[in-house]
C-alpha cells in the first residue's frame, strides 16, 4: 500500500511536467494547426532561464577571507550579499522560484519572435514540412544552448527550506514510510495552478472565448471579423510561456542540459496523441496518467514480471490507445483527421 502510494506521488511530478508541456503543445496544435517539434526546446529554454538567472544573481567579487589569518586567502562573494547582506543571500537562495518572474517576459518574447519570424509562414504548409522545419529549429536552439552553457548538466538547487523531504505519510496518518521531496510536491502543486490558470483564462475571458471558437472553426471566426492571426500569435507566446515556466521549476529536479528538451519532446508528443489532438483536458489527463503509469512500471515488483516495461510503457500505451481509440482519449472531432 505504502509503495503504491509512493509510486503514485512519484508519478505526479513527472506527470505535471508532461501535462504542462502537452498543454502548450495542444494549444499550438488546436489553434494554429502547427505541429511544433521545437516545443521541447522551449521547455529546455525555460530551464536555462533559471540557470541564467541563478548565474546572474551570483555574479561575485573576490574578497579577502577574514577567517583565515595566517595567509592571504580570497573567496568569491556575490555582489548581492555584499550590498544587502542576509537579504541578498536569501534572494540567491530563492533564485529558482524568482526566476519565473524573469522567465515569463523572456519566454513571451521568444514565443512572439518565433511565431512572427518563422512559424507564421508555415500555417499553410503540410504537417510534414511543419514537423521537419520545427525539428530543425529545435536542433538549432539546442546547439545554441550547448554553445553557451556547455554540454554538462548544470545543477540548480532549490531553496534551502524546501530541499529536504516531506514525511507525507505522517501528515496523512498512513505510517512513516511515505517520504517525498518537498520540491516535487511543490512542482505538482505548481503545475496544477498553472493548468488551472490557463483553463480559467480560456474559459472566462473574452480572449479565451475567441481562441476556443478558433479551435473549433477557424475560418468562421475569421469571417466574423476577428483578427484571429493576431490572437494566435498571443496563444503561441502563451504556450511558450507555459513550457518555459514548466522548465524553470523542473530545473532543481533534473539538472538541465542541452538535450533535456529532446528527451521530453518525444514523450510529450506521445502524451498529446494519447490525450487526443486538440483536446486540452485530454492533454492534461494523459500527461498525469502516463506519468503515473511510468512510475508504476518502474516498481521492482512490476519489473520482475515484465523486464524493461518501464522503458517502453508510454509508447506501448500510445500504440494501444491509437489502435483502439484512434482519436485519443478525449479527441475532438475534426481536429487533425486526415
Amino acid at each position, binding site marked *: 500500500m505504502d509503495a503504491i502510494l509512493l509510486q503514485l506521488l512519484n508519478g505526479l511530478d513527472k506527470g505535471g511536467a508532461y501535462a504542462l508541456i502537452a498543454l502548450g503543445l495542444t494549444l499550438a496544435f488546436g489553434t494554429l494547426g502547427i505541429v511544433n517539434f521545437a516545443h521541447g526546446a522551449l521547455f529546455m529554454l525555460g530551464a536555462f532561464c533559471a540557470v541564467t538567472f541563478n548565474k546572474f544573481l551570483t555574479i561575485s567579487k573576490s574578497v579577502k577571507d577574514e577567517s583565515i589569518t595566517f595567509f592571504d586567502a580570497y573567496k568569491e562573494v556575490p555582489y548581492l550579499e555584499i550590498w544587502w547582506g542576509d537579504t541578498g543571500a536569501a534572494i540567491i537562495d530563492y533564485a529558482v522560484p524568482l526566476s519565473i518572474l524573469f522567465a515569463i517576459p523572456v519566454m513571451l518574447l521568444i514565443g512572439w519572435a518565433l511565431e512572427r519570424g518563422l512559424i507564421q509562414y508555415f500555417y499553410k504548409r503540410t504537417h510534414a514540412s511543419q514537423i521537419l522545419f520545427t525539428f530543425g529549429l*529545435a536542433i538549432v536552439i539546442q546547439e545554441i544552448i550547448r554553445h553557451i552553457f556547455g554540454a554538462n548538466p548544470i545543477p540548480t538547487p532549490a531553496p534551502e527550506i524546501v530541499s529536504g523531504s516531506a514525511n507525507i505519510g505522517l501528515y496523512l496518518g498512513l505510517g512513516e514510510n511515505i517520504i517525498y521531496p518537498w520540491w516535487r510536491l511543490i512542482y505538482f502543486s505548481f503545475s496544477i495552478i498553472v493548468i488551472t490558470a490557463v483553463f480559467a483564462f480560456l474559459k472566462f475571458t473574452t480572449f479565451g472565448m475567441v481562441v476556443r471558437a478558433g479551435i473549433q472553426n477557424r475560418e468562421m471566426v475569421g469571417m466574423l471579423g476577428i483578427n484571429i492571426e493576431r490572437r494566435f500569435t498571443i496563444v503561441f507566446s502563451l504556450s511558450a510561456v507555459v513550457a518555459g515556466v514548466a522548465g524553470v521549476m523542473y530545473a532543481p529536479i533534473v539538472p538541465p542540459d542541452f538535450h533535456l528538451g529532446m528527451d521530453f519532446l518525444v514523450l510529450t508528443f506521445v502524451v498529446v496523441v494519447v490525450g487526443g489532438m486538440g483536446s486540452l483536458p485530454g492533454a492534461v489527463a494523459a500527461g498525469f496518467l502516463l506519468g503515473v503509469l511510468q512510475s508504476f512500471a518502474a516498481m521492482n515488483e512490476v519489473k520482475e514480471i515484465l523486464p524493461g516495461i518501464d522503458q517502453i510503457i508510454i509508447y506501448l500505451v500510445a500504440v494501444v490507445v491509437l489502435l483502439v481509440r484512434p482519436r485519443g482519449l478525449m479527441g475532438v472531432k475534426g481536429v487533425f483527421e486526415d
Partner: protein
Amino acid sequence: MLRGFLKINMKKLLKNNLVIMIIFSVVVLTMPIWMQPFGAAYPDILQKFVIFGVFAIGYNILFGLTGYLSFGHAAFLGVGSYTAVWSFKLLTMNIIPAIILSVIMSGIFAVLMGYVALRRSGIYFSILTLAFAQMCYNLAYSVLTPITNGETGLQLAKSDPRVIDRLFSEAGEGLPSTTLFGIETSGYSGFYISAVVMIIVFYISLKIFNSSFGLKLKAIKSNQNRMRYLGFNTRPYLLTAFVISGMYAGLAGGLLAATDPLAGAERMQWTASGEVILMTILGGVGTLFGPLLGVIIIKYFENIFSAINQLDLHSFYSIFPTWLENAMVSISSLFVGEGWHMTLGLLFMLVVAFLPGGVLEGMQLTYKKLTTYVSKKRNKTGGESKKETGVNHGK
C-alpha cells in the same frame, strides 16, 4: 535538323533503363577518381556515401512515393547492424549470410511495425513510428543488453563460436576480419562491394518507380481517398512499400556492420531517422537521384565541417585584422567542429522553408530560368521573327 534529332534521341536514350544504369554504375564506381579534387577520395567516406545511399534510396521509396513520413527507420538500421554482427559472431565472418540475415530480420521488424503504424496516416503515423523506434532504442539500452551489449555496443570477440568458419578452418590468432570469400571488406574493396550492392538496389528502386506498383503508391500520395473509391485497398500497397524501405534500411545497417563490425544503439535514435529524412529532402523527395545527392552533400560536409577546429579557422581568417579575425572565428566556430549539428539544423530549416523540392528541383528551376533567359535574349537579338501567336496557346 540534326540538333533536333540528337535531342530527341538523347531524351529517348535517357529514358532507357539500361542506359541510366550504365551511366549510374560508371559514375558510382569511378567515385574514387572524381572525388579526388574534392578531397573525399578515401574509403571511409566513400563507404558512407554508398551505404547511406542505400538507406536514403529505401527511405525515398516510402516517403517519396507515398508521402508517409516515418520517424522510425533508424530502428531498422540498428536491427540490421545487430543482426549482421551476431551473424559474424555465431556463423561466419563472410558478409553474405550477415547481409541476407539482416535484410530478413529488418523485414520482419518492418512488417510488425508497419502493420500497426499504417492503420493511421499523417502525423499519427509519424508518431507511431517514432514510438516504435524509441521503444527499440530504449530496449536496446536496457533489457536487451545481453543481445545488444548496451552502451558499449556489440563487438566481435575472440571466443565467438563462428560455427560455419570452424568447419573449414581453425580459429586464427587475434580477431578475424570480415570477408567476402577471402576478400577483405574494409577499405576500398569494402567501398566497391557496397557500391555494387547500391547499384543493384538502385536498379530495384528504378523498377519500382516505373512499375504499376510505383504508380499506385504515387496515387496514394496524391489522393488516398480517390484510390479507395476506385476500389483499391491501399493498405497492402503501403505495407509493401514500408517493408521494402525497412529492408533497405536493414541492408544499409548490415553493410555498415560489414565494413566495420560494430553495432551501437545510438544508430537507432530518432535523430538518426531525422538525418535520413534530411538527406532525402535535401536531395529531392520522390526523385530517383535526389536522395543520393542529399547523402553525398550531407556526409561530405559533415566530414569537412566536423573536422575543422579553432586553429584552422584562425589560419583561414588570418588576412583580416586581429579583432575581426577573432570575431569571425568565434562566429564560425558555432557552425564547425562540434557545432556541425547546428549547421545541420539550419540546413534543415532552410531547405524545408525555401527548397521543399530539394537541390534537384532547385537545379531544374535554375536551368529553366537560364534557358528562358537565354532564349529571350536570342529572341531580342533575332528581331521579331519568333513572335508569339495566339494559336500556340491552345496546346
